[in-house]
């Protein structure tokens, strides 16, 4: 069970992530994008999902990552990500509810480069019961 005390709290990811051109190129290649001076619009999921995993699976929150399904996703992109960007990523657990035996959490991720908010994203994650 997810700890209900975690709802409303923001957890800072421990990692500082530097985006490389080869990561952008690899992501772009999958979708056939040849213009790689900026990252594709959904590239930031690469950062958010790994930070979610390390944050949400901590014992004090208690998400079982092996039972996770991605329900929905939203991005607000304030500027495009480019190679050399260095990010810290936070996760805010906005809501938690239980439906049909599944735990449904809504998590917001903010990617900041220094003080600059570059991408906010919202993910609904379903932990299957």
């Amino acid at each position, binding site marked *: 069970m997810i700890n209900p005390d975690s709802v409303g709290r923001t957890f800072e990811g421990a990692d500082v992530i530097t985006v490389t051109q080869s990561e952008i190129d690899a992501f772009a290649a*999958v979708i*056939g994008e040849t213009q790689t001076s*900026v*990252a594709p619009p959904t590239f930031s999921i690469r950062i958010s*999902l790994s930070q979610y995993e390390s944050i949400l699976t901590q014992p004090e929150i208690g998400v079982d990552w092996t039972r996770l399904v991605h*329900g929905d*996703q939203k*991005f607000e*992109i304030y500027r495009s990500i480019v190679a050399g960007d260095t990010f810290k990523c936070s996760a805010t657990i906005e809501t938690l509810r239980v439906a049909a035996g599944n735990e449904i959490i809504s998590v917001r991720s903010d990617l900041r480069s220094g003080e600059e908010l570059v991408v906010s994203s919202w993910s609904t994650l379903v932990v299957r019961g």
Partner: protein
Amino acid sequence: MIDVGSTLDEHIYLIDRALLKAYADASGDHNPIHQNEEFALSVGLPNVIAHGMLTMALAGKYVSDWAGGSATVKEFSARFIKPVIVPAGEQVDLTINATVVEINGNQIKLDIVATSAGVKVLGMAKAVVIK
């Protein structure tokens, strides 16, 4: 001329197991339901399924191609309502079209429809682009 109600040309993307592997490597999402058929079946799925975020990444390519590149996409959202099923040795379609639903200055809001094998796979898929 772009008006509310204008429709964008449909595009078909092809998805196979090799693309799932490439997306897993590029995104860091190595969940075995996207690569290992035995595992996918063991958790009750009909077969290996594509990452929802791969479907969304391809829809992002679709809207950015229309609007003029990755940097044009300001908001983008979707629900993963049905999986894209990817049997071994097959290429399955991801068929995408979109309609202009709102215009505010240079900001255009699109409703996106994405299907695979005739089944709608994204719900409430919307993007706001600058064009």
